[in-house]
């Protein structure tokens, strides 16, 4: 019997799990996929929003601001890349400049520091590739960028290092309520018992709510993206947004923490968690990018992808106890700025909601820092040679585009949370994320996974389930 069971291994579930390990509690997390960070926390813009967007007085506004402030030190503790690159909301007309002032005043009411409306001359100094048509911008110096899946993986890894347990491939399909807690059942027939449940299942959260006897309708809005090679990384330095209109926010153009450029997302209402890209969607992305910047190097595209935002008609975060099932807590409708807000949400949920069920006793052994030696290529020459001497596999480059070593790949399979497929290794190490998209390294990575997990090569998958890479041996 666990004290607390978190359902859903996204950034919200992950950071709540880590927050729980700060106390003397027996905790676990279940995730339906073969790896964590497979939902919204895998495919989003990765922006640490400053906080001028959300309406005054909402949970979004509150937790955005706190999360924005928590992010730099959290990222440092977890060894996750974060850059405070600043955001710019760009105006293309006089009317839009008016809107910028509205945003500025809303931001100030929300508590955002340093907001400033700048004219074209200054904008051009900050962003030389900005469109000829841009007339000014709102500068938000506290805006930043972070790697969302790294943050999720690192928080769950750190929680596991501090005693939490993880069950992947556990697709919750039934919940039985008993006197002192719940029995949670998976599609494959496993059962886990816990006193308190926290529903962080993103787009699947509506189903979990109904299993608990509540009615919360979670809907999906898809966003498509295009990613450009690092070679084009100097296109922009800040995150560039369009001025919001009645039609929506439009796409953004931003650097990523790994030096690529991300373009997107679109916004399309969809039925389920469908993350297909469409030609119209991708065309809208390129059209938006061309409107924002001059000379967008689209020839340097290395991949395109999509994610689905999970939202409810409340259009604010739902962080509350279940109506029908005492001892269950919902964290739903966590759409943007959910990534930014996630550290603040986690703290709130544990300190204000979980605390109602347990007396929170500090875990004196809690170790907040995750071994941050992830990227070999960022080490100094001496550090590199020291590592190769200890473990020669760090001297073998497997992914040539990103210069990732065999040692890093093996570590990704062995360390918490263990990677068990090609995409899981990719999210942890970046092997296969560069310009050749795994063309060279995939066969090597597959062999290393097979070796470490002691399975035949045919059983290695791209991303779990039936996504096998190979269809048997040659004649």
């Amino acid at each position, binding site marked *: 019997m666990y004290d607390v069971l978190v359902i859903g291994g996204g950034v919200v579930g992950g950071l709540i799990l880590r927050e729980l390990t700060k106390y003397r509690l027996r905790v676990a997390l279940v995730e339906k996929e073969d790896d964590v960070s497979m939902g919204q926390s895998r495919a989003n813009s990765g922006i640490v929003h400053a906080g001028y967007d959300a309406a005054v007085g909402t949970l979004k506004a509150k937790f955005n601001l706190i999360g924005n402030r928590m992010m730099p030190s959290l990222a440092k503790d977890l060894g996750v890349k974060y850059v405070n690159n600043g955001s710019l909301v760009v105006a293309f007309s006089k009317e839009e400049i008016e809107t910028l002032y509205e945003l500025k005043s809303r931001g100030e009411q929300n508590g955002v520091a340093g907001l400033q409306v700048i004219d074209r001359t200054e904008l051009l100094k900050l962003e030389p590739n900005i469109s000829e048509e841009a007339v000014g911008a709102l500068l938000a110096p506290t805006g930043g960028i972070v790697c969302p899946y790294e943050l999720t993986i690192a928080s769950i890894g750190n929680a596991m290092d501090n005693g939490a347990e993880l069950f992947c491939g556990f697709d919750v399909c039934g919940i039985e309520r008993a006197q002192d807690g719940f029995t949670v059942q998976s599609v494959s027939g496993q059962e886990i018992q816990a006193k308190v449940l926290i529903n962080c299942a993103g787009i699947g959260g509506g189903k979990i709510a109904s299993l608990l006897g509540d009615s919360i309708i979670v809907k999906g809005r898809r966003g498509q993206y295009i990613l450009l090679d690092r070679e084009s990384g100097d296109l922009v330095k800040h995150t560039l947004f369009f001025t919001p209109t009645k039609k929506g926010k439009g796409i953004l153009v931003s650097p990523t923490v790994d030096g690529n450029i991300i373009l997107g997302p679109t916004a399309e209402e969809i039925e389920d968690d469908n993350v297909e890209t469409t*030609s119209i969607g991708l065309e809208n992305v390129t059209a938006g990018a061309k409107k924002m910047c001059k000379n967008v190097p689209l020839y340097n595209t290395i991949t395109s992808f999509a994610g689905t935002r999970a939202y409810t008609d409340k259009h604010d975060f739902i962080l509350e106890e279940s109506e029908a099932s005492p001892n269950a807590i919902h964290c739903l409708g966590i759409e943007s700025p959910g990534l930014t807000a996630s550290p603040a949400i986690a703290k709130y949920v544990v300190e204000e909601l979980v605390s109602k069920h347990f007396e929170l006793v500090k875990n004196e052994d809690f170790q907040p820092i995750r071994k941050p030696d992830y990227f070999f290529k960022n080490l100094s020459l001496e550090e590199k040679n020291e590592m190769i001497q200890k473990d020669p596999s760090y001297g*073998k480059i497997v992914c040539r585009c990103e210069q990732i070593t065999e040692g890093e790949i093996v570590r990704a399979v062995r360390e918490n949370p263990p990677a068990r497929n090609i995409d899981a290794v990719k999210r942890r190490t970046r092997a296969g994320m560069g310009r050749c998209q795994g063309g060279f390294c995939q066969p090597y990575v597959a062999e290393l996974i097979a070796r470490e997990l002691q399975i035949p090569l045919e059983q290695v998958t791209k991303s779990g*389930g039936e996504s096998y890479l190979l269809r048997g041996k*040659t004649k």
Partner: protein
Amino acid sequence: MKKKYDIVIIGGGPAGLAAAISAYDHGVQDVLILEREENLGGILNQCIHNGFGLTRFKESLTGPEYAWRFIDGVRERKIETLVSTTVLSVSRDKQVTAINERDGVFTIQAKAIVLAMGCRERSKGALNVAGTRPAGLYSAGTAQKYVNMKGYLPGQKVVILGSGDIGLIMARRMTLEGAKVLAVCEIMPFSSGLKRNIAQCLDDFNIPLYLNHTITKIEGKERVTGVVISKVDENKRPIVGTQRYIECDTVLFSVGLIPENELTKSAGVPLSLKTKGAIVYQNRETLIDGIFACGNVLQVHDLVDFVSEEAETAGVGAAEYVLYGNREKDVIDCKNGQNVSYVLPQKIDRNQKGIVKLYFRVTNTFKNCVIKLKSGEKVLTERKKRIAVPGEMESFLLTEELLAAVNGEIELSLEC
């Protein structure tokens, strides 16, 4: 380990091997080849089909057999090689930093460097194909590696996008392994592959080649379950109403090769936007003195025979640089004119003696046309050409007399 060499060669494929041998035979014996893989031979090791060496050896060899002739040459001369060693960066002043399991990260000072890193395949990601991103999407070369080097079959029902040579060869290879190749789609009105490969790899196996077609959607959640293909118009836009669904479990992408010039860039060597390789003189010296480039890292070749030839030129160039140092140049710029997508070398140094072979590719399929070499308005020479296709590299010989008549720059064009 030794930290100084006269010539360091990066890449132990056919280009690196031939450059090493020719530099050695030209009088510079202090040569080191650095190769990332465990074995020398480069991409040829996975090309177990035959057809290599027809021009050079007048016989049809498999890729590994062709490579062995050069590996033997390197062994006979006792040229030093360091395998399982990846070069991380190259500097302008010719320091080469590399990494391996035994020596860690180390730096070698060279007098001359030959870049021979080959090329990589353009990935599916670059194409923005709509739909899902399941397992079963491979670049043709990756599939070739699985089949030929690892002994595994990536899939059973295959659609191939792009009719580059590797795709064509994999269409045959997968068929021989029992897979069914349902279609090869090519967005252009012509194939970029060799004519002989279309005949031997598709026609002989009744595999349909759909020109002016592309994949407009990929379906399947975990593994590919099918694709939608569509015909395209002159602007390569899909034509509504021509969509067709093909059920398959695998898609191979053979959509072009890109020279691997990350190291070249790290040394600050200027590149050509057209070839995506370094700008070079006829001896394959780049615009940085003493740094040479040859093989697929310089321009994507169709035939390895020409790779070897080009590498020998670079090897001699590097040896002469070591023996005689930097010599003054008298430069002619070579430009591509009408209907020609690029020429190589981009610069000719008149002080280097001998005939210059000017390589070029055409932009489309042309019949009964004339290749013209001009300097300003003056036509220096011309040659009739019955047929020219983008998939086959052409060449044009420039004699010393001809070059003597040139003033400043020359332009090669194709007129119909």
